């Protein structure tokens, strides 16, 4: 099995122009690029995704690059975080490296500098999945089967809770679905369940009813696909 896939990088900059420029360069080199406009968004995205590296602007509103890097390093974040700034004197660069950044790219960005640094950090445009455990794959397939087998019961429970207008029960069901569906590739179920849980917590009854309807439809769609 060929597990080769595109390497994903996160570009963090509050300037649209800078993000576009970097995105264009990295795109041309064959990398997949995701973006964030400030340090807080960068931390959230870094936790939720699997990036090979983060290219981080220093001065940004809401949360600066060094603050975001510090948060991620506190959580033992593994991938390199590269500082990107117009202040390129050696003293400042050393300060960034001391703060835990793995490298530095000067602004205005020269594509060759980006290429050289990624090369130095051994981050190529494609990667291979290293994890290959047949036992885990088998277990995942079994759990996926069980999840799909439970769909009719879950749909009935949702419909029953909706009839009774029991939002407590609805919250229990969608909370569980939120956690498990994405494990088996049903990202949309997780997303709707998350929206539903938030709506219930905020007391938005009509939104909760609409989301429950969407959730039931999505689960029935999966069920039909299986038949």
């Amino acid at each position, binding site marked *: 099995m060929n597990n080769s896939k595109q390497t994903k990088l996160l570009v963090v900059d509050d300037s649209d122009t800078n993000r576009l420029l970097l995105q264009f360069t990295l795109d041309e080199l064959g990398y997949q690029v995701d973006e964030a406009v400030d340090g*807080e968004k960068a931390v959230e995205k870094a936790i939720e995704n699997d990036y090979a590296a983060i290219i981080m602007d220093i001065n940004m509103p809401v949360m600066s690059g060094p603050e975001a890097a510090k948060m991620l390093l506190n959580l033992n974040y593994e991938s390199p975080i590269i500082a990107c700034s117009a202040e390129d004197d050696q003293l400042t660069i050393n300060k960034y490296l001391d703060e835990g950044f793995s490298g530095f790219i000067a602004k205005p960005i020269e594509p060759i500098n980006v290429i050289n640094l990624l090369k130095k950090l051994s981050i190529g445009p494609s990667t291979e999945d290293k994890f290959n455990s047949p036992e885990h794959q088998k277990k*995942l397939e079994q759990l996926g089967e069980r999840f799909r087998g439970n769909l009719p019961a879950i749909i009935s429970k949702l419909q029953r809770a909706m009839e009774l207008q029991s939002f407590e029960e609805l919250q229990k069901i969608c909370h569980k679905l939120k956690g498990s569906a994405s494990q088996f590739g049903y990202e949309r179920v997780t997303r709707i369940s998350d929206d539903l849980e938030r709506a219930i917590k905020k007391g938005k009854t009509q939104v909760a009813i609409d989301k429950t309807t969407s959730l039931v439809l999505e689960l029935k769609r999966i069920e039909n696909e299986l038949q």
Partner: protein
Amino acid sequence: MTEKTTNTLQALVVEDDIDSLEVLTSILDSTKIIHSESSRTGESAIAYFKKNRPDITFLDIDIPAPNGIETLREIRTFDSSAKVVMVTGCSDIETVKEAISLGAFGYVVKPFVPEKILSVIKKLRE
């Protein structure tokens, strides 16, 4: 489940959702170097931790009372060197900040990416 020996790492997985619990323990057990135990509530996790002091704890944030953050606080108060990795369905920056202030060792988001789980284990062994 990996057999418990003196060389294996002891992990505790705290998760109320059985599917997520089984996926995570399957990843851990497939390494052959981790022996994992599980708890379904914060209360039982705290009791297990105090008795067994696992090398690493994977703790879901959305567990019933006490929730993951409260459980983290309790565990870290009991043992300030405890390595606790927070597990969640989505990363909310305020919760991330709170987890860091309480000394969380790491943060992983579902669906579980085996490489990310294993990189946390690698960090633990450094």
